[in-house]
């Protein structure tokens, strides 16, 4: 197998240019999907028989929660690859995942609380799903704080990578918490063995929103990884060239 393409991604100039070229496309697709998904979720989808229009919160709550776990998984995976094979670009990618992941997690908790009040009669319960998701938020924030606290970049990379890998245990706990324990939180709607427990008229906007969030996440991650690459660069010829070009464009 030819690994040249893989090693090319490890080269800062190649990655910087690649990310700069693709981030706007991912963001553009995300905006289009978001517009379609919001229209579908707020206007086209019928109101729920039990929850009436309160169920529409699902179209922002589930994509945020899904992306929260997905971002954490990517962050831990990138951190692990960076730690094991000492690939610096992977540490840059892991660091770029954290702020977006923290915000997805916070939004999933906030929208879940808002949804809980009309349907459960309370904003918060000490329920396995809610508490485990709160821990995901703490791990994201801890990861960001740890990176910020260590001056030396290589040491910050290694220490935060270990934290990210340890915290990945949370991902299956959050996902299966509704099956393992008696939970107030409802079970999975889309990812079920017997197919989605939702009619297609309600499910398609949700799938579009999950797609929108995924493209959005990749765009944000690429933008932040570019900033990380710049911070790590000691000033090669390619950097001067790129900065001159960015200066001319601005």
């Amino acid at each position, binding site marked *: 197998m030819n690994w040249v393409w893989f090693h090319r991604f490890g080269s800062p100039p190649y990655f910087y240019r690649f990310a700069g070229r693709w981030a706007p496309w991912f*963001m553009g697709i995300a905006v289009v999907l*978001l517009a379609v998904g*919001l229209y579908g979720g*707020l*206007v086209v989808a019928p*109101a729920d028989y039990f929850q*009436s*229009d*309160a169920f*529409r*919160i699902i179209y*922002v*709550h589930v994509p*945020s929660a899904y992306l929260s776990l997905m971002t954490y998984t990517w962050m831990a995976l990138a951190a692990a690859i960076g730690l094991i094979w000492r690939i610096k670009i992977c540490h840059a990618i892991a660091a770029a995942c954290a*702020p*977006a992941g923290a*915000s*997805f997690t*916070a*939004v999933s908790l*906030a*929208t879940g609380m*808002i*949804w809980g*009040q*009309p349907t459960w009669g309370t904003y918060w319960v000490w329920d396995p799903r809610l508490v485990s998701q709160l821990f995901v938020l703490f791990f994201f924030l801890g990861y960001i704080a740890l990176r910020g606290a260590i001056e030396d970049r290589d040491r910050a990379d290694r220490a935060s990578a270990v934290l990210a890998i340890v915290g990945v245990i949370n991902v299956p706990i959050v996902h299966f918490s509704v099956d393992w324990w008696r939970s107030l939180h409802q079970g999975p709607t889309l990812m079920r063995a017997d197919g989605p427990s939702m009619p297609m008229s309600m499910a398609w906007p949700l799938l579009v929103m999950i797609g929108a969030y995924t493209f*959005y996440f990749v765009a*944000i991650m690429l*933008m*932040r990884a*570019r*900033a*990380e690459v*710049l*911070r790590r*660069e*000691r*000033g090669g010829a390619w*950097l*001067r060239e790129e*900065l001159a070009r*960015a*200066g001319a464009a601005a």
Partner: protein
Amino acid sequence: MSAFLEMYGYGAYVWSAYAIAIGGLLLNVWMARRQLRLAREEARRRIAMQEHS
């Protein structure tokens, strides 16, 4: 239109949840762009200092 905004009495819940979600998305874009701009300025300063020394 007002019926759409009311959401059968759930308007306050639905719209605040959507506002938080969209706000979070916009905040991330703003922060990512700001970080990239700051990193560029930092790199320019670093290169300028290397050239002077």
